[in-house]
């Protein structure tokens, strides 16, 4: 079976966009419902800080009100970081993959996208938001589930899985940075962190956002303190959204590509995964983990970006022939596509404080 390099890349990004949309939906859902007390208007700037979208946000919106932030992250098709944009981009990748993926994946994603595109302003208000986020989350879960039960296990499927796990590791790492973002955001607004979210409540919220609340309760009867939650989501090897779990999966999949499909070029990516493992190990043993959490997360996110770029240059851009210059209008039936198989940059840069040397 032949897997085109372009199709592998599209599978990779299809998975990433779906995982990204699901994560955003969960964060918004938990913070808007369980964190209701804090959902007063000015307190939603942290989400913009978390995803480093301040510049883009302020172009179209004046204030970080609940309404504006939700609009920006859910239904704003112009925002590369929005749920609607992600699902649309996932669908565009799926469209180009329709000769490859089972029709079940396309049908689910196509109907899901239609449903999402038909949402109106009323679906984003405080009362409906939880339901709307539920629809999005379930639509994304369904896509991942359909892929799991129908997608043929070839190289392409491995790249789908790599995309899924890299995005998931990135999202979990960002989630652990919510507190940092909130403090940074309050300071920027001159408010100071008033601690209006009781720590226990806050960290429970993080667990819920990671769909890890029950598992954590069963494993950590002593309750949710920052250090325990951080370790659970960073290094627990059985929690399917922990960074370590994801990195293990990435490693396993790369080894399958290497051994089962003779893709020797995986060695550089495997070396990067080793470094990630070492970093996670030292974080696990760091007594000051909570204090250094932001630095750890920055490092992790930076590493994941590098891993993505390594996969891109090794597998997706084989023999990159220079494009015929200059680009001219193609025939009337085919307007030149703006490739949507790229990450569109929204999340490819971490905060400016990120330093890859700042290893934990």
């Amino acid at each position, binding site marked *: 079976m*032949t*897997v*085109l*390099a*372009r*199709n*592998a890349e599209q599978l990779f990004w299809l998975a990433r966009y779906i995982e990204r949309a699901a994560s955003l939906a969960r964060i918004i859902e938990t913070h808007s419902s369980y964190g209701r007390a804090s959902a007063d208007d000015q307190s939603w700037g942290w989400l913009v800080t978390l995803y480093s979208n301040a510049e883009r946000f302020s172009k179209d919106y004046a204030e970080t009100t609940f309404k504006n932030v939700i609009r920006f992250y859910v239904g704003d*098709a112009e925002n590369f970081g929005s749920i609607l944009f992600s699902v649309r981009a996932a669908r*565009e990748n799926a*469209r*180009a993959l*329709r*000769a*490859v993926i089972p*029709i079940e994946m*396309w*049908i689910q994603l*196509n*109907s899901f996208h*239609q449903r999402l595109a038909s949402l109106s302003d009323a679906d984003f208000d405080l009362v409906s938001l939880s339901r709307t986020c539920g629809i999005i989350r379930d639509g994304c879960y369904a896509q991942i589930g359909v892929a799991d039960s129908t997608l043929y296990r070839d*190289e*392409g499927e491995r*790249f789908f899985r790599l995309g899924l796990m890299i995005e998931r590791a990135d999202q979990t790492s960002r989630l652990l940075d919510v507190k940092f973002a909130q403090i940074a955001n309050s300071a920027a607004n001159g408010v100071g962190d008033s601690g209006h979210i009781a720590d226990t409540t806050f960290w429970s919220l993080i667990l819920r956002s990671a769909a890890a609340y029950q598992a954590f309760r069963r494993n950590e009867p002593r309750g949710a303190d920052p250090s325990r939650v951080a370790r659970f989501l960073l290094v627990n090897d059985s929690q399917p959204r922990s960074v370590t779990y994801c990195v293990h999966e990435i490693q396993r999949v790369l080894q399958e590509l290497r051994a089962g*499909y*003779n*893709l020797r070029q995986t060695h550089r990516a495997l070396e990067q995964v080793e470094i990630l493992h070492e970093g996670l190990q030292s974080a696990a043993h760091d007594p000051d983990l909570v204090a250094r959490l932001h630095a750890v997360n920055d490092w992790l996110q930076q590493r994941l970006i590098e891993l993505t770029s390594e996969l891109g240059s090794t*597998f997706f851009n*084989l*023999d990159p*022939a220079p*494009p*015929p210059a200059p*680009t*001219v209008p*193609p*025939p009337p*039936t*085919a*307007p*030149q*596509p703006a490739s949507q198989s790229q990450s569109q940059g929204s999340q490819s840069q971490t905060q400016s404080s990120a330093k890859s040397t700042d290893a934990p």
Partner: protein
Amino acid sequence: MGTLTVLKDPRRQGPLDSYDPKPYFCELLGTKAQPSKALVGIWQRLQTLEVETLLRRAHEAESELLNLGVTFTVYSDRNAIDRILPFDIIPRVMTAAEWAVVERGVCQRVQALNMFLWDVYHERKILKDGIVPAALVLDNANYRPEMIGFNPPGRVYIHINGTDLVRDGNGVFHVLEDNGRSPSGVSYVVENRHMMQRAFPDLMQGLRIKPVSDYGERLLSKLTEVAPEGVANPSVVLLSPGVYNSAYFEHIFLAREMGVPLVEGRDLTVEDDRVYMRTVSGLQPVDVIYRRINDDFLDPEAFNPQSTLGVAGLMRAARAGRVTLANAIGTGVADDKAVYAYVPRIIRYYLGEDAILPNVTTHICGEPEGLAYTLANLDKLVVKPVGESGGYGIVVGPKASRAELEKCRVELEANPANFISQPMVDLSVCPTLTTGGVLPRHVDLRPYAVTGKTTWVLPGGLTRVALKEGSIIVNSSQGGGTKDTWVLEDEPSHPEAAQ
């Protein structure tokens, strides 16, 4: 209309009660008082359904097509809008005997056109013998000098062909147009059938309908037959301009049904006259390309240097015999409007046979009798300019103003060879579901022929229907839809048919 009365059941109402094909040939009734038993059976089954039921099922079928993504895409600034080709749920039905004529006729035509192409790119005998004017071929914009002397595997140029047919008032099929470049629409034939199987199992029950779902397998096997010589397990791909092409669904469909990679120009590269595709495990050779990109955009090195959709060096590889392009480059000279008029003579010249499927009567204005007849009957004829600008400048005599006719006359006299003329064609009708009930609407038929070492014709083909009352324009861009086309297997003979 005796037939209609006979078919009415006085005890109950049916959706076809007010159906009246008037003077046109009806695809379900015919014009004679002796419709085939199978077709009457289908008529009676339809009669047991209510219009509301039909409308509901039609609505469900359309939303299913949308979910399945059996669509063409219209792009506005940033939004991609998926539209389905309107689908009419009342099938067009052909008996085995009717189909046998079409099938033989299409095979004959494709064979003659392939022989014609070989000839005009080699010895040019048909031109030397004066059967077809040399200038018409050699000065044609679609004649590709790059193809002169090139020997395609099996001498096949047109691997995939679509023949547009219309049926006159007596039920006789006529060829309206040949499509030997990159005919589209076959995906709708198969998807329409699948849709009917889901939506109308009751209508199809017990009927023996020739299958269409093996099109992909057949196509792949035909393409394998024309692989470059000596290639044991040829690697076949489908080359598409990409997701922004309005026929992209069909490209997906064909790649999926053949089980071959759907590639774009950027996925391919040519090294030492060998074509490769970029895969995750490196470059892999490609032997046969079913291309859905026009000649002009196929290879920036050989043709339009501005094309970003094609693959540089493809023509070199093809000429070196390292890759087979289907269809071959340069087939446009055979399906040209000007050449069309000569196809009956082309068939006679190469095969020594009369055309099984006649052309629509065509007057070649480049010939004195044709010109004289055209000028004398300008108000009754459709005058079409030939050559590269086909489609534009058509003058429909009965509908044209006096000034338009006069202008046409001047142009005809100035350059008669640039025109052909044809009588107005009466298209047959088929019962079609409308919000006003089941009414007659005009249809045409495009059968698809696939040629490797031999030619195979997909039973039936694409039936396009003009959904507007009285309209004879079946194009999807102008309010046309499609129907499922059933070709019935041979029935064991029964007493009624024997009389």
